[in-house]
């Protein structure tokens, strides 16, 4: 297929159903694209063996021909972030700690895609335990941005973003705890959907910060994200925090006319690249012309977003990552003096610097002397932040913000001041703290040729409304997908 790299999942799925494309041919195209550019980009930590992929594609093709599989995803290749378990396939979380871990079960989200006939190609690179914004904390080395390989693709789901932006697969799964789907989607010219908390089962997702972790998607357009929502969302008996699909069943298609969109100016007071600010207001003008009301608002408590988020995320990480002790699974140090030393040495050698940093911060804010001053305080501030968002959503349907203060940084930039870099998550953490939904969408390229993304944030359950609005009103000056290919070939 000449145009494999450009196809959305829906277009490819439709061709397979119509019989104009064979699922085996699609899988071969995926492998050829990977062969061509993976060495440069390092999207994957593990690619399934070619014979396994082709055999699976052959089985799916036979079922499609027998009319047993009519799903729009039948035969469509996809990739999965390496913190989602797949039975029998290495799942490392980008960490030395889990470098030998092979799960005995498959996460519900991945299983749903496999049941629909999608073809798993491999597991993608990520910041270690999803802690980072560039994939540079991965034990296995960073991924590179397809638009400029000297730059980061963003993170933590950077490998998943690269796999779609480079045309290896039409869609991929990532996870988003503080922006880990939306920021790499923005840096790679993709649509990144962060679902409302609980909408997609987290059974089989290796936990980072459980009150904020969600499984999200990378696609070339909003329509694919909508299709994936219908496949992935729903109550799962194996995840008691998962929600019924009716939670997002907005039946009314949101028209631009009459839609109320707010721009939180207090968020924009933090440093934002002037070019991104300009694109944001250009987007606002475009939607005004289409009939929407786009006005500014003061959200409130914006200065507390980063402190509250990092206090809570680190506390939950410190608790969740206690399970890695060198005994039950994961890395064990070679030499130790007794059980306590085994724990300490295994954890200190198995975790990288950023993970150890966040565990230390989390342990500190949870310690008896500082619990009230930091952790409880952050939970109370989170209540106020949630109140500020609820108040905003009484007056506005969606909030429009940048995704990140700038375009993709050069590799190595984040390492200079890791804690200082936490501030760059300002625009994305609000949706995680409050449990709402948010979608990062491409609006064009910067003067330097790098993708720029903006974000629409909605109240919990407005997932479908945002994606349907964007499906009709993507204010992009380019046709989708934005092509990185000239840069990588």
């Amino acid at each position: 297929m000449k145009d494999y790299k450009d196809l959305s999942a829906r277009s490819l799925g439709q061709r397979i159903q119509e019989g104009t494309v064979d699922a085996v041919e699609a899988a071969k195209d995926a492998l050829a694209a990977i062969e061509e550019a993976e060495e440069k980009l390092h999207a994957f930590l593990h690619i399934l063996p070619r014979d396994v992929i082709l055999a699976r594609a052959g089985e799916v093709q036979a079922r499609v021909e027998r009319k047993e599989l009519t799903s729009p995803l039948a035969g469509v290749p996809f990739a999965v972030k390496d913190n989602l378990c797949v039975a029998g396939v290495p799942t490392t979380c980008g960490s030395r700690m889990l470098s030998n871990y092979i799960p005995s079960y498959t996460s519900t989200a991945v299983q749903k895609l496999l049941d629909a006939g999608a073809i798993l190609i491999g597991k993608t690179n990520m910041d270690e335990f999803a802690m980072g914004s560039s994939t540079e904390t991965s034990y296995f080395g960073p991924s590179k941005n397809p638009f400029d390989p000297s730059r980061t693709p963003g993170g933590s789901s950077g490998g998943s973003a690269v796999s779609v932006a480079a045309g290896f697969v039409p869609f991929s799964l990532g996870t988003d705890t503080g922006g880990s789907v939306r920021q790499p989607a923005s840096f790679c010219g993709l649509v990144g959907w962060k679902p409302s908390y609980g909408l997609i089962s987290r059974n089989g997702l290796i936990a980072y910060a459980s009150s904020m972790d969600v499984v999200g998607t990378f696609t070339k357009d909003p329509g694919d994200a909508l299709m994936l929502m219908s496949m992935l969302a729903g109550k799962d008996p194996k995840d008691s925090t998962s929600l019924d699909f009716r939670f997002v069943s907005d039946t009314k298609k949101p028209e631009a006319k009459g839609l109320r969109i707010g721009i939180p100016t207090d968020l924009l007071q933090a440093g934002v690249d002037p070019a991104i600010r300009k694109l944001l207001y250009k987007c606002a003008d475009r939607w005004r012309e289409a009939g929407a009301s786009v006005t500014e608002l003061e959200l409130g408590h914006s200065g507390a977003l980063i402190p509250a988020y990092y206090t809570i995320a680190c506390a939950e990480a410190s608790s969740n990552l206690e399970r890695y002790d060198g005994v039950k699974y994961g890395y064990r140090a070679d030499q130790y003096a007794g059980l306590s030393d085994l724990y300490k040495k295994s954890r200190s050698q198995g975790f990288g610097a950023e993970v150890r940093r966040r565990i230390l911060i989390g342990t500190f804010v949870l310690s008896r002397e500082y619990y009230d001053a930091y952790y409880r305080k952050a939970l109370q501030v989170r209540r106020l932040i949630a109140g500020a968002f609820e108040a905003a959503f009484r007056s506005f349907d969606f909030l429009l913000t940048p995704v990140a203060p700038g375009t993709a940084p050069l590799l190595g930039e984040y390492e200079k001041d890791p804690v200082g870099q936490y501030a760059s998550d300002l625009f994305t953490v609000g949706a995680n703290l409050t449990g709402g939904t948010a979608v990062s969408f491409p609006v064009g390229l910067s003067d330097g040729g790098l993708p720029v993304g903006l974000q629409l944030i909605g109240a919990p359950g407005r997932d479908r409304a945002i994606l349907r609005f964007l499906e009709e009103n993507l204010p992009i000056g380019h046709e989708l997908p934005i092509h990185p290919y000239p840069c990588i070939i």
Partner: protein
Amino acid sequence: MKITNRELMRTAGLAALHLSEEEMEGARSDLEKMLDLAEGMHSIDTKDCASFDIPPLPVSALREDVVQNGSGKAAALKNAPYANEDGFIVPKTIAME
């Protein structure tokens, strides 16, 4: 906020992490920077404000405590760094006098 050596070592101990002499200054600096960042919350009046632990769900996350997974002992032991067919192998923790 300044972190003392004692506080740093105690925190590392609680986190079951080993901190070498060389790593201590970096860890202290990172922790102090994060706590300075967290100061941004302290000017906010949270008197009588309830905690927000988890986004509110329209359904209860609680369920009956019923075993559903069955016996996965062999599969669970497969990923252990050291195990026999009965369980995980850990260093001896009680010494005989």
